[in-house]
């Protein structure tokens, strides 16, 4: 296990280095940020001053080496636009994104697993068919449109929930989050459901497929023969086995939820990282783009690692294979 983790971390370092270089060259190829940032009223003298102030007057390789030098000391550079350390800028937005992703994930799992299990347990019932048809909608409707529709219905027509932004934040265990205040929860509900919809459908379908597959397995027949109640067979034995594919997919999807919730954040004006990256790309704010991708990649690596560890907890076969190997 330790060897495995070390190997993973080394791979990560290589991936991070290659990616930072790609982004550096890529942003350089798109264009010159000063063409966007410098006021059009300005003359050439002012433009040259800005180019020098942002360190863009040096050749690209020198800028990259300078970046690497800083990165090794934990400094990913300062945002051109905000004049704040890029990392600090991202970390400021991270809680908002994390709580949104977390809320969406909880909704997807809490609603998706039971619905999917039911649909798998009684595949022919009309309720199950409705669930499955609904999950197709969840897959195929564009997030952007659903978000706007939800705002129209719940915020504009009914006036139950606020339409934009993050609500009041509270502190719990030293973490600042809007999930502990009533106002905060009201604000997070619509965007979280919007973000959860696609994942919910996915979880639902996986759970259903897992259910159907497992019900035919020998261990289920054995459990039944042993005289266990149907409830115990499904909720304990089958459930555990369904969880394995679910954990894999959830792990991957959590990364997606955190890194690419751009659409939902835009529609609901949620002050998270997704909005930051879009704005940064529009402004060619290279330090933020590079730092964001570095953070994202690190996060994916960490989540995948956690998934692998979870496997060995859930599935005794993995543990045994490792013990042997």
């Amino acid at each position, binding site marked *: 296990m330790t060897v495995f983790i070390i190997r993973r971390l080394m791979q990560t370092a290589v991936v991070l280095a290659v990616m930072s270089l790609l982004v550096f060259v890529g942003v350089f190829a798109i264009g010159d*940020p000063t063409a966007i*940032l410098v*006021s*059009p*009223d300005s003359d050439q*003298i002012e433009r040259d001053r800005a180019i020098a102030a*942002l360190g863009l007057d040096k050749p690209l390789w020198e800028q990259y080496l300078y970046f690497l030098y800083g990165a090794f000391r934990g400094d990913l550079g300062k945002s051109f636009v905000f004049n704040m350390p890029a990392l600090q800028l991202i970390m400021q937005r991270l809680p908002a994104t994390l709580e949104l992703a977390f809320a969406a994930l909880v909704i997807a799992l809490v609603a998706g697993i039971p619905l999917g299990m039911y649909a798998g347990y009684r595949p022919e019932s009309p309720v199950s068919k409705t669930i499955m048809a609904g999950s197709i909608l969840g897959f195929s409707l564009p997030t952007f449109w659903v978000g*706007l529709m939800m705002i129209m219905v719940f915020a504009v027509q009914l006036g139950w929930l606020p339409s934009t932004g993050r609500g009041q934040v509270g502190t719990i265990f030293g973490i600042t989050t809007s999930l502990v205040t009533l106002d905060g929860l009201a604000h997070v509900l619509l965007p979280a459901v919007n973000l959860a919809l696609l994942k919910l459908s996915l979880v639902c379908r996986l759970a259903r497929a897992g259910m159907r597959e497992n019900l035919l397995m020998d261990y289920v027949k054995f459990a039944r023969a042993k005289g266990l109640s149907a409830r115990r067979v499904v909720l304990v034995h089958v459930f555990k086995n369904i969880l394995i594919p679910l954990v894999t997919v959830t792990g991957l999807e959590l990364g997606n939820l955190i890194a690419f919730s751009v659409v939902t954040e835009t529609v609901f004006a949620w*002050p998270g990282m997704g909005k930051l990256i879009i704005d940064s790309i529009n402004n060619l704010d290279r330090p933020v783009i590079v730092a964001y991708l570095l953070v994202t990649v690190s996060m994916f690596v960490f989540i995948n690692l956690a998934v692998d560890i979870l496997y060995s907890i859930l599935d005794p076969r993995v543990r045994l294979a490792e013990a042997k190997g």
Partner: protein
Amino acid sequence: MKRSYLRGLAGAFAAAMISVALPAGAQDLTIGLGANVTSIDPHFHNLSPNSNVATHFFNKLIDQDEQQKLMPGLATEWKALDNTTWEFKLRRGVKFHDGSDFTADDVVATLKRVPWVPNSPSSFRIYTQAITAHEIVDPYTIRFKTAAPYPLLPTDLSTIFIVSKKHEQSPTGDFNNGKAAIGTGPFKFVEYVPGDRIVGARNDAYWGKKTDWAKVTLKLITNNSARVAALLAGDVQVIEAVPATDHARLKTNANVSLAQIVGNRVIYLHVDSFRDQTPHATDKAGAVLPNNPLKDVRVRRALSKAINRPAISERIMEGLAIPAGGVLAEGFFGSSPKLKPDAMDPEGAKKLLTEAGYPNGFGLTIHGPNDRYPNDEKVLQAIGPMFNRIGIDTKVVTLPWATFASQGSAPNYAYSLMLVGWGAGTGEASSPLRSLLMTVGPGRGGSNRGRYSNPKVDELINQALATVDDAKRDKLLQEATEVAMADVGLIPLHYQINVWATRKGLTYKPRADEYTLAMSVSRTN
């Protein structure tokens, strides 16, 4: 007894209704802004959304009213003592939010800070560089010297926010966290959450007209649909930059009022009239023409005559634009009332092309941004067929602003004909004339992407920029625009109309400079 109880209940019910109509108390105001703010430091980034926010917390020596006419701010009066000396009388009894007095020392500290701000991506130095020396006559009188006659000094200073001398050396971060965000403005700084909101509280010691609002929250909602939805849901009471697509619907909504004004922004086509061979003017087979047809004024005039401006303003802009014949709408200082938009005349245009030696037209690729101005992409796509009609095979290419801006500007100049916009931040015609139509050189032609050059125009603008007398300068600016337009230095399309929407019961005093100020929001009753 019972009756009074009932009355009390009715009162409580009414109060509840009111609180539903205007959530979070009638003293609070929430505004949805459409563009991102990058800092609270008023000298960090020369970007109008930043200045818009700074106006709530800071004052300038000279203010601009809704029509961008200059009016007294922290200076009560100003005059040119001679051609190169200006005297400003400062307002007495003004206090900063920390209680300290405002004097000439703060003005000097501000002038020192402007060019100093570290890492500024676009500094305000360009508005203070004309001042070569200053002299404090007494704490409430200050004189500025300029190297040459510079009539725009008051206009330039109407962009500079005065900070306290205590914060001359405060870095941008101290403004963002509030430590140095100490101004003299109508609101005191409360909170800035980057990318989300800016909060201010009424400055009860304000020297000017006190605002109706005890607390103002400026929410950053850059997505158009989300901003409109927030207004409809009542989460914000005012929004700026109402998109044309929602304008008609909001007009019929009983809960919403609209306010609009012709803005200071012109949308135009810049034409490469500089190079002998321009990269995107080709023959019909696609080979670059040996001679740049756009250098010929008859071709430029023909292109202008091919455009159906009323259709663009009415259909594509859905009425939120008026056809343009110059670089700044009528009514602004220095704009010529004589300039009318070219009427569509395809036959006349073809005749001009024939005279110029292109009876069968030529091929042309036109470029523009697709995420910068309202309907920018659609406008360009409508112009394509209009050019086709006079025999010019037109291809339309639109790009994100990030790519377009750096490719289309100095030193790349990658395009032959492109759609751009210009907002006259100073509210008078020298701003577009100097940047768009003067020959590229130090301090001028900074955004002249077509590299248009006409000695006559240069001379008239230079003359205007050295004329302190307002009436004479007005005439010279008008004349410069007329000469440049007769030469089709650029092809104007339309002036944008700025629209705000408020919840019923509130009104917004619309501003030509696109600023959205809590001070301009008032209750109707």
